[in-house]
């Protein structure tokens, strides 16, 4: 009797885990980190983190990096924040509060839509952003996040 009950409990737990997993997979699409095609080269998660925390300010040629965020309530911003910083975008406010006070620094600029990020990065050689879909090739994807392991990718400029 005890064995049967144990099996039923295990089956219920397994079902719950599978349901949770399927919900996660269904709702969480990968995130593409994008740059202007002339900047196409691979970046690591650590480099992207340093750029979006404004710890790294310059490309290797000395030009200033211009990171752009999506709005705080967007799904892709939340996903990016969790994958790159391991924190929600709300929790990231703590980091920016400190930078604001200590050094007068502000978080990256925010753009209102996926299309706006794609357009901005396509025309700004120093920009870097992130989107769920890379579009028609006007930008170069340099890192794919959230697809099991982070994958370095190269764009049309390579």
């Amino acid at each position, binding site marked *: 009797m005890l064995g049967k009950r144990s099996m039923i409990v295990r089956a219920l737990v397994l079902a719950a885990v599978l349901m949770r997993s399927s919900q996660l997979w269904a709702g969480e699409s990968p995130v593409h980190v994008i740059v202007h095609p002339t900047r196409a080269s691979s970046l690591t998660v*650590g*480099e992207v*983190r*340093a750029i979006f*925390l*404004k*710890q*790294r*300010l*310059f490309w290797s040629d000395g*030009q*200033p990096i*211009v990171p*752009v965020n999506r*709005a*705080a309530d967007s799904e892709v911003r939340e996903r990016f924040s969790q994958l790159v*910083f*391991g*924190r*929600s975008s*709300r*929790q*990231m*406010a*703590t*980091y*920016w*509060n*400190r930078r*604001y*006070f*200590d*050094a*007068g*620094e*502000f*978080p*990256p*600029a*925010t*753009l209102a839509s996926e299309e706006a990020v794609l357009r*901005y990065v396509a025309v700004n050689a*120093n920009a870097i952003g992130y989107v769920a879909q890379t579009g028609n090739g006007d930008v170069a994807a340099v890192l794919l996040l959230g697809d099991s392991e982070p994958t370095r990718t190269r764009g049309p400029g390579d």
Partner: protein
Amino acid sequence: MSFGTFKLWIGPRARLLAATLPLFLLIGGTVHAADEVSTAPVEIGESPLLTAGPIEYRPGRGLRLGPTGAVIGGFTNIKAEHSKEDGGEFAVDKLNFFLIFDRYTRFRAVAELQLKDIFAADKEHAGSRDFAFDVRRLFGDFVLYDELRVRAGTFLTEVGYWNLILAEPLTWTTEAPLIIEESFFQATTTGLMLHGSRAVGVGQIGYSLSSQFLKPLENDPDLDPPDYTGGARLEYGTGTAWSVGASYQAADTDDQWTHLGGLHAQWQHERGELLGEFLYQDGDGLDSSQWGAYLQGVFAFHPPFYLVGRYEHFEPVSGEGEPALNIFTAGWVYKPFPFMALKIEYRFCDKEPEDDPEGLFASFTTFF
């Protein structure tokens, strides 16, 4: 200046800086630099609450004056306390204004103007007793490379962790740990600092080398700044999840040197945070060594409600008549927004300290 019990400390440097800084910021905003790209091209942070033409206000991030790059922000702290010794007191403790020039990647300027002890009321008195206006910080940051930046002016002394978050909206308790309040080192440094960071392994390693060789801007007569300091700080971490660091500072006051060493560690999780810091100081300028440490934990039991606990130990300089102390703090924090907090805490000690009594402390604080 003195108006009866109303004292106003406005030094000549503070007056000059207060008068010239807004002008400097506005003039700076009109300068065009074709080779520079603003790091704030579209929007800063989240959506503005108020917009009037090019002027935008974002709660907790200040008022941005359009394309000039000038931002006016700040924070306030209002506190109430009740101790067995002194009874109850309510105080508008601080109103600090930030003037930030954020137009170029390679240069930014920050000024912090402080109005202190604005109003206090207790069982014997209501009004302003020690009102002070001062320039707390004023510095320029020049970025040569990511790994090499130069900061010149008056800035927060790079020792440990808490001293770099010396604004009430950034802390979890109304009262700072005793080792921060006690005179291990001066909160600001006036001179030069070289600093920078570089990605190493899974994190970022940051360093700073700083020296004070000028008189502080702050005009507080209670300050007894060293004639010269030299310090170094090293920190490694992810910037968000955890960090560990070590600091050292040598200070010379009237040809007597003291040496200060510090260690700090911080770990953040979705459900909470741990922060610990240790300071040890010795040298010719002290009768004996002094040291102290604290460990603080924050538990997000039902965000935006948080529980805070802190244990502190402080071994003061022997011969000053103060005993070693163990201090415990238990508190509750409500953070409706990331830039605003309502804090209530009770602090108790195993021995009664001279200046920081046991009791109930509460405060409301916000960046604006």
